[in-house]
């Protein structure tokens, strides 16, 4: 049985699914970033697409709503000349796993070449990859609290664009690490790409008990944690954390962990500010910072398309070759 990371690599070490950053090496992550550079200019042309995935069908299988992520995947697929199907499947119609498999089989019967999967349950993308027919690639577009690897890679792309390289960088991730698939993937990617330090800044209620084992330094004090960092990544705070006795109030959270110009002054003078969006202004950060000169939040969105084009095309390339090999 395929387990964990090996599920996403073929026997020559090439990417056939993109489920998690876990188990991928620096060369592979760099290859994704380099390929994304190649795609970055496509959106500035008269014809904003390349023919590389012509005739391929990419199905966006979204069990959880996310207009933004779905839209960037859709654009990425279309710019590669693939046909893109959008399937929003509400939780009520698939509370059981058998329906998930049924959905998969139905789409495979339509000769879909790739699934982009967003699901509220951790491990959903692994499950689908394990059951997908040979030649069908799976991209995890966010599963529960587990992983959101394309978001992490677009963040890495943004950092590399602004900072040149990863070596020597200090990166702080602020907020709800416990529930964040984005943070888990970012931490793995940053460490794999060789930054010098990853810090997480949060109250204990928003940190996993074994957070340190993820490879981070833990801070509970924002002013201390942000000192001299080159990159500040703010995470989104879900409103329901107030109900779950995780935090007393948004007000206190902002007072202790909100990013303001004054706080940002302690970071490196060239520090950039990132956020996976959508921002809660006045909860995670002030509008001043969100719209300020250090913010690269909107660039993250546009880089997201190039990064997703890179991942889709690399995987379709690997899967194609595998089916060619099987025929041969």
């Amino acid at each position, binding site marked *: 049985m*395929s387990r964990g990371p090996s599920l996403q690599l073929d026997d020559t070490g090439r990417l056939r699914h993109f489920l998690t950053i876990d188990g991928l090496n620096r060369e592979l992550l760099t290859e994704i970033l380099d390929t994304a550079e190649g795609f970055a200019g496509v959106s500035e042309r008269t014809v904003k697409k390349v023919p590389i995935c012509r005739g391929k069908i990419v199905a966006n299988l979204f069990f959880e709503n996310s207009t933004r992520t779905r839209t960037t995947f859709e654009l990425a697929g279309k710019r590669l000349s693939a046909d893109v199907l959008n399937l929003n499947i509400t939780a009520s119609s698939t509370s059981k796993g058998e329906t998930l498999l049924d959905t998969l089989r139905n789409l495979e019967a339509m000769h879909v070449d790739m699934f982009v999967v967003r699901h509220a349950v951790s491990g959903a993308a692994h*499950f689908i990859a394990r059951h997908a027919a040979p030649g069908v690639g799976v991209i995890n577009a966010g599963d529960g609290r587990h992983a959101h690897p394309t978001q992490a890679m677009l963040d890495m792309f943004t950092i590399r664009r602004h900072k040149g390289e990863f070596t020597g960088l200090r990166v702080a991730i602020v907020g709800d690490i416990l529930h964040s698939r984005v943070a888990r993937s970012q931490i793995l990617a940053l460490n794999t790409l060789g930054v010098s330090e990853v810090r997480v800044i949060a109250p204990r209620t928003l940190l996993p008990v074994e957070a340190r084992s993820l490879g981070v330094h833990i801070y509970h004090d924002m002013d201390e944690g942000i000192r001299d960092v080159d990159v500040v990544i703010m995470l989104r705070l879900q409103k329901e954390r107030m109900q779950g006795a995780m935090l007393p109030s948004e007000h206190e959270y902002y007072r202790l962990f909100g990013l303001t110009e004054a706080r940002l002054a302690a970071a490196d003078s060239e520090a950039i500010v990132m956020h996976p969006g959508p921002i809660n202004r006045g909860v995670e950060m002030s509008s001043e910072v969100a719209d300020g000169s250090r913010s690269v939040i909107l660039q993250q969105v546009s880089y997201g398309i190039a990064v997703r084009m890179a991942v889709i095309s690399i995987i379709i390339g690997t899967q194609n070759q595998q089916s060619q090999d099987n025929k041969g």
Partner: protein
Amino acid sequence: MNSSNKISILQGRLIDPANGVDRVTDIHIENGKVAAIGEAPAGFQTATIIHGNDKVVCPGIIDLCVNLREPGAEYKATIASETAAAAHSGITTLCCPPDTLPVIDTPAIAGQIKHKARKAGYCRVLPLGAQTQELKGEKLSEMAALKEAGCIAISNNYAPLANTLVQRRALEYAATFDLLTIIRSNDRHLSDHGCAHEGKVADRLGLPVIPEAAETVAVARDLALAQTTGAAIHFHTLSSASAAHTLAWARREKRRVTADVAVHQLHLTEMDIEGFDSNAHVLPPLRSTGDRDGLRQAVAENIISAICSDHQPHEADAKAAPFPATEPGISGLDTLLPLTIKLVHEGVMDLATAIARLTIGPAEILGLPLGRLQVGATADICIFDPDTYWTVVPDQLTSQGKNTPFGGWELPGIVTHTLLEGRIVYQRD
């Protein structure tokens, strides 16, 4: 009495930990009882001879937790299918927890299960009565009636009582009728909707967690309530080393408390859920290697005096979903004895101790005169080859449930004969 119910097992290695026996000898059985050990009684005309050479002969295994799935979930397994699998695995007595559909909270359901088991004829089935009506944790069940209908003990199984006052009263009421209360300790609020041990692996995989404290808090609470009420309690399927420590203290204090552990907890850890393997999704969750080692030690030292299968057969669909959305549990009958013998091969305990945890240990917890093989004892017997290895192939399990994380494992121990009350209920071809 004709000679057809006379059986002699010749030259087997008899291991009967309850009586301190471990020697090669003969056993003669008549009328469902052990008639003699060593020389046959004068005039004993045996009808069936079983050659025990190179095999271990021990009391039939008593499994404290086997979900039969009937009534209510016959698509997963049936009383007939699972009692046959039990016989195949050397198990002669099993307890079935009350969370059937309908729940075992009336004498009628308990009676129905016992009747079907008797009809199948493979294994002695002892139902556990529900602690509360429909297992809802609100109103007490009719425990006295359940006892009269054959329920050996009382349990709320996977729905341990969240309301401490109801728990206290349920313990008091059970104690009135000298009924043992079996508890799967789990603080419902702390475990929330978790599905994995709160530790490195779940933190990395982003799985909702069940902290160790969900067990230790509940164990501490129920020990205090048992002390107050004078009730006898049994902790079922402990999963943490901390809970085992607390239990060791309680046993030193001579509290009326016992415990068992599921055999998979003695082999697997949180690492086994890597890759979101839903076959390793169990409740309580697989914990750290420290927990596994602590549990092994507690079993070796008889702080935990029974090992059970915590058998939970499932249909394939129950495991065919993303990890948190799958149903927990392992189909464990086939692997109970082999995994226990594996502990012997790994130096955790000697063979006699291992057998004790499967026989006299659970018998004493339940207050049954079983799990021992002196002259006059009920002839529930398991005969197995302890040194031959076999490979676990999930699809070839005898249980109707093929859900096991042990697929591909090489395990020692093959059962060759199972005798229930002097009757051969399983014989290997």
